[in-house]
């Protein structure tokens, strides 16, 4: 019984580690719900491997995992737009407005909770909800509206990378 649950514990451990890294770091980082969705998809994948390896099917497990897959697939476009960012409201908006100027994007109708991004004739809304002072829950605009929004989100990803630290190499001058 314990052996059959082992892959699930690995996935739960990975998600817990990702969340803990996000919570303990002091750097401005982001937690991207789309990435959590991808990690969660490892659960049904692990179950599929177990079934192929001869594990007996269990209706309750299969039904739960099928529900997880269906929910992620149905909501994937929306989930990918939700980020939790570790920064203050003022710093977030200041950085975003600077990036919008650099991209020639208009940032209209701005309040502390939202702004309307305009590129030519098209526009889309970016929304934000403060969670406990240093965390902001962001709903990004749909990227299909204009290519400049993709560049804005690329810039956000550079400003607020994921919480997993990278290997760093410092190049010395000759």
């Amino acid at each position: 019984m314990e052996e059959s649950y082992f892959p699930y514990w690995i996935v739960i451990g990975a998600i817990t580690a990702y969340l803990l890294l996000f919570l303990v770091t002091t750097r401005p980082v982001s937690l991207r719900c789309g990435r959590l969705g991808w990690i969660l998809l490892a659960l049904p994948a692990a179950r599929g491997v177990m079934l192929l390896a001869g594990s007996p099917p269990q209706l309750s497990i299969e039904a739960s995992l099928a529900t997880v897959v269906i929910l992620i697939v149905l909501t994937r476009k929306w989930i990918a737009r939700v980020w939790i960012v570790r920064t203050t409201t003022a710093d977030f908006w200041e950085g975003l407005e600077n990036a919008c100027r650099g991209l020639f994007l208009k940032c209209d109708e701005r309040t502390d909770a939202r702004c309307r991004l305009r590129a030519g004739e098209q526009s889309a809304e970016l929304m934000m909800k403060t969670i406990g002072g240093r965390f902001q829950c962001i709903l990004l605009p749909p990227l299909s509206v204009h290519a400049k929004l993709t560049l804005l989100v690329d810039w956000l990803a550079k400003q607020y990378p994921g919480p997993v630290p990278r290997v760093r190499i410092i190049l010395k001058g000759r």
Partner: protein
Amino acid sequence: MSQSTVQTEVSINNTPEAVIGYVADVNNRLLFMPSLKSISDIEGEASAVGTTWRWKWVMLGVEFEGAGRCLEHMPGQQYSFTTEGGITSTFSFKATATDDGTHLAIRVDFDVPESLLSNLGLESLLASLKKGDADQAAQNLKVILED
């Protein structure tokens, strides 16, 4: 030391002055260079010859850090900068006026220490990554400067 060059070009429906002016402002670089992660410690005017900065570059999940310096800025014509350190690169942007706006040629010359290449066999991979980055940067400039 091994030398490589990658080149790309793009037509942009805007004036050469606007294109080179945008490229030359070091503050804009993060918005169009896909693998450039951050620019900091800018010393000097944002687009002036001799201005220096620190940069972070991400390649294959590894973060590299080094220094950059503007080498040349001819408004509406040409701009180039160098990145200094273990991997030395020179990025050159040359704008030519056309009927539709501007033809922008981007050239990246870079040196990689032989030790890095022989130990890891990275030369072709590095050239391919640089070419992909230059192509993407050119397309990003088109998106930013045409609307």
